[in-house]
């Protein structure tokens, strides 16, 4: 470990707090720039998708249980399951598929 964990935490916290607090305190009028608005609009979807796949395959004991969780989680979310429920469904899928089939 070359780097100090507390320095990492300080940097990430400073960036996060700036991101969350600055727009609320600085912006009084409405954002008008369409390009900037559009970019910010798409950012979360790309970031979360990229972080989910293929990482989910390596998070579990078996690649296949991770893949199954992705597929079933996606279907559940598509059908309208809440954030909490999708998270629980994914966990259950991994647990039982590894227990019964893939273990």
């Amino acid at each position, binding site marked *: *470990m070359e780097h100090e964990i507390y320095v990492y935490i300080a940097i990430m916290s400073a960036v996060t707090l700036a*991101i969350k607090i600055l727009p609320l305190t600085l912006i009084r009028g409405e954002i008008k720039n369409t390009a900037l608005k559009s970019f910010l609009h798409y950012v979360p979807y790309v970031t979360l998708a990229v972080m989910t796949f293929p990482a989910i395959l390596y998070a579990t004991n078996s690649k296949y249980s991770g893949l199954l969780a992705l597929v079933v989680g996606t279907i559940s979310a598509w059908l309208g399951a809440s954030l*909490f429920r999708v*998270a629980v469904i994914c966990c259950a899928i991994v647990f039982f598929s590894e227990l019964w089939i893939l273990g």
Partner: protein
Amino acid sequence: MLITNRQALLDGIRDGIPIGLGYLVVGFTLGITAKHAGLNPFQGFLTSILNIASAGEYAGFTVIMNDAPYLEIAAITLVANARYLLMSAVMSQKFSSDTPFYHRIFVGFGVTDEIFGITVAREGKLNPFYNYGAFIPALPCWSFGTALGIVAGSLLPSSIVSALSVALYGMFIAIIIPPSRKDKVIFSVVFVSFAASFLTEVFFNFISPGTRTIFLTILIAGAAAIIKPIEEKEKSDGA
């Protein structure tokens, strides 16, 4: 219709309880990642109470795990949390001009996907006490959940850890899939992101996960913004 600060606080606590329960589980699994990255329980608690950001913290922990340069954690945090910039901007529009300025700072501190969701779902101007009410169950669950994951994550059998490890991904899926169903462009963006992420991982596996996320986010979100700029009428759909 004017409601009292006390009533807003109580409403906030009520709506914050289910959020808190979810945060406890997700915070716990985040703690498992934090432990892999070498954080102790206090460091995990500190990170979570200051950031309150699942994807952002997760991304940060992967940087710490790889002992990557400090600049990388600043960049990845900026990218992973960029959506809060938009949420904070949206919430700035809901503040009444006679709400004291310091409330903007505290409300901003507690911007999360879920708290943003319940805040914009409320009619009328934003009452900061509603947000503070939601903080009461949500924030401790999140930060103590992380610390608990670091402490107890290693005591759990591998099958349980394996199962809990996907909770966070399940949450990410639950954030990106419902809008994909409603909006073809977002559907395409998510699909292209999955494919590009997979291909990058296969063919350029020397690029760290953090750098890959930054690179693909700027590339794909930038391309989407150029090809399909959002229209004025869609501005409220920004979460």
